[in-house]
């Protein structure tokens, strides 16, 4: 086989697909569960505040959607018929890892912030605006990984086989 399109190159591409969705859903699951603990604790005393406190859970779900979008994006570039260069394999791996691990970090942040702010919202209603701001900044961490993955993925077609 050619040196720049070795047969093991698709392994890296598929590893990128898997890591994008695996790590981002790990982060989203942690965020959902940690925020859910705080919400259910708060909900026993103030059930009227539950709908507003579910915002961290929705934001953790969006982190998983970012990972899903990146993995679908990378899958679209994999095909058994076209030659697949090692360059493209590394790009896809980098895209998957960047989106996945930033999603893991963002989900972690959303979980802890959601838990603490749900409990604090019970006592002080002005925490709500601060909670939304903190959650937006935590979400943007995952968005940066998505942007880097998108930019990387546009250059995957540049590799040629020698």
């Amino acid at each position, binding site marked *: 086989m050619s040196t720049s399109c070795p047969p093991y190159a698709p392994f890296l591409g598929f590893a990128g697909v898997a890591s994008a969705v695996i790590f981002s859903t790990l982060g989203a699951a942690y965020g959902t569960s940690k925020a859910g603990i705080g919400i259910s604790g708060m909900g026993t005393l103030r*059930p*009227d505040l539950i*709908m*507003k406190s*579910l*915002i961290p859970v*929705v*934001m953790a*779900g*969006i982190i998983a*959607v*970012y990972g*899903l*979008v*990146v993995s*679908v*994006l990378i899958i*679209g*570039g994999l095909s058994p018929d076209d030659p697949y260069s090692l360059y493209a394999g590394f790009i896809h791996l980098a895209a998957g890892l960047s989106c996945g691990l930033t999603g893991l970090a963002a989900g972690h942040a959303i979980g802890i912030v959601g838990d603490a702010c749900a409990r604090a919202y019970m006592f002080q209603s002005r925490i709500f605006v601060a909670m*939304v701001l903190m959650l937006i900044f935590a979400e943007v961490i995952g*968005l940066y990984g*998505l942007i880097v993955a*998108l*930019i990387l*993925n*546009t250059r995957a*077609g540049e590799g040629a086989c020698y």
Partner: protein
Amino acid sequence: MSSKLEQREQQQEQEQQEDNGDMGSVLTKLAIFTAAMVVLPIGSYFLSRDYYFGPKNTTPPGIIAATMANIVLVAFIWVALKEDREDAKREKLKKKQ
């Protein structure tokens, strides 16, 4: 004395009925937002990639998918705030009575 107890029991039953009546709307909202979160981002990605941006140009469809997910989030926040305002109005009316 017994009439007061009966009154309190009636009030508690009414409140329980109201809470259980809300369960239908909560489940409806859950179903709508779950469906929206699942279908809208990926659906908009594939639709915009296949019918508008061409099969190889994948960056704008990715941006559209991320934007749709955030739109669903904004819609959820809006619905939660609206429900909160309605609950506050209802409580004010109850207190006036």
